């Protein structure tokens, strides 16, 4: 046996055992899509949000203050199929000092990666979100007796494939999602209202300073700046059916902010600006600590449960 063959075989074995092909969290070619706060990113991944914190004021007159904490854990089952479990807790404090609080329904999201086009920085993901009825604090009104099922499509597109003449513009990327929320009951007997089917949709516009530095031009900016992704997110829902007696009003928020990309984590902070009076009062705040489990634990829980041991790709320019 050649003296070079043994180390080569050992290396190949190492790669075969541990390597994902992988762009585990959302890498598509040279583009990295961060985990966005108000809408979902277009990739399956091994990641965790611990927690997402939102503070806002309700649309009531006078408004109540609302604090929401959410925990999300995402796990790839295979390279392209993943499951996310989510749980949130909400506290509403009325102007008179009275407090209501409780858990929302337990939520699971099943997602399948349809496409990752490296050269065009394009990712497409399909999913079904299920809010399971009677799994939260139904007595206090934070959860419902019925379930909600939302088939959803997610898309992400970076503009790095534009001609070089577009220069700095190539650091922009957009993501979007659109879902159709179907309740399992058409009437809520607790609150005596029809439960509408809703279009749930959102988008983000993001400018990647890491991409600018490594792909377009290194301006010699401070390291902190080179880790930032300024972002604007839009999160909306519109009743579209079974909404008898109620206005078909779109509600949601526009969220300008930024995401700081660390080695194994990211931190996001956004303002939440209601799009209309029915969406809330004043400006709220949304923050998130997000952990990249595939980077933190690359050989254990950062791997897909099944089929995640393909050898790395050789260079294919």
């Amino acid at each position, binding site marked *: 046996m050649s003296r070079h063959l043994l180390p080569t075989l050992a290396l190949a074995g190492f790669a075969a055992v541990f390597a*994902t092909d992988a*762009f585990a969290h959302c890498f598509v070619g040279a583009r990295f899509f961060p985990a966005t706060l108000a809408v979902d990113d277009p990739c399956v991944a091994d990641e965790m949000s611990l927690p997402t914190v939102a503070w806002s004021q309700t649309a009531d007159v006078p408004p109540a203050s609302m604090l929401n904490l959410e925990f999300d854990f995402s796990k790839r089952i295979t390279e392209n199929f993943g499951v996310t479990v989510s749980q949130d807790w909400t506290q509403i404090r009325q102007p008179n000092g009275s407090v209501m609080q409780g858990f929302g329904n337990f939520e699971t999201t099943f997602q399948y990666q349809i496409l990752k086009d490296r050269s065009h920085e394009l990712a497409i993901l399909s999913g079904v979100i299920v809010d399971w009825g009677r799994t939260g604090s139904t007595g206090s009104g934070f959860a419902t007796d019925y379930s909600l099922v939302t088939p959803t499509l997610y898309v992400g597109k970076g503009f790095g494939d534009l001609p*070089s003449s577009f220069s700095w513009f190539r650091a922009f990327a957009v993501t979007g999602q659109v879902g159709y929320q179907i309740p399992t009951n058409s009437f809520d007997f607790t609150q005596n209202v029809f439960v509408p089917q809703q279009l749930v949709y959102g988008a983000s516009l993001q400018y990647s300073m890491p991409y600018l530095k490594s792909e377009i031009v*290194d301006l010699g900016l401070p390291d902190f700046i080179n880790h930032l992704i300024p972002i604007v997110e839009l999160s909306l829902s519109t009743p579209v059916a079974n909404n008898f007696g109620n206005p078909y009003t779109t509600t949601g928020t526009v969220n300008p902010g930024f995401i700081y990309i660390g080695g194994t984590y990211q931190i996001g902070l956004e303002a939440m600006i209601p799009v209309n009076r029915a969406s809330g009062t004043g400006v709220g705040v949304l923050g998130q*600590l997000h*952990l990249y489990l595939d980077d933190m634990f690359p*050989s254990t829980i950062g791997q897909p449960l099944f089929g995640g041991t393909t050898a*790395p790709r050789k260079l294919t320019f």
Partner: protein
Amino acid sequence: MRILTLATTALLTLAADAAYAHAFLDHAEPRVGSTAPAAPKEVVLSFTQNLEPAFSSVEVSDANGARVDLGKPKISASTMRVGVKPLPPGTYRVRWQVLSVDTHTTEGNFTFQVGQ
């Protein structure tokens, strides 16, 4: 709330021990998007993580797509360098793909110019 804080601290501590992550391009010489006043003899790429040499590579090409690098790069820890032929003034593209030691693949490309 205290439980969340403790859990977060524990996870970040574990992550610090693992100390891995994808290999991002930290800086390059010639610098990304820059104009070099004189033709460089090599292109040097520095990454945020150590690299696995057998699965990491780079190529440099001119505006017509012709290779101008001298072949196999030298890789040491988080640095990859490749020699280049004498470069006349013009625009050159560097394309790289690396496997970090924690087995994550990343890729990218950028241009630099040699002064007119």
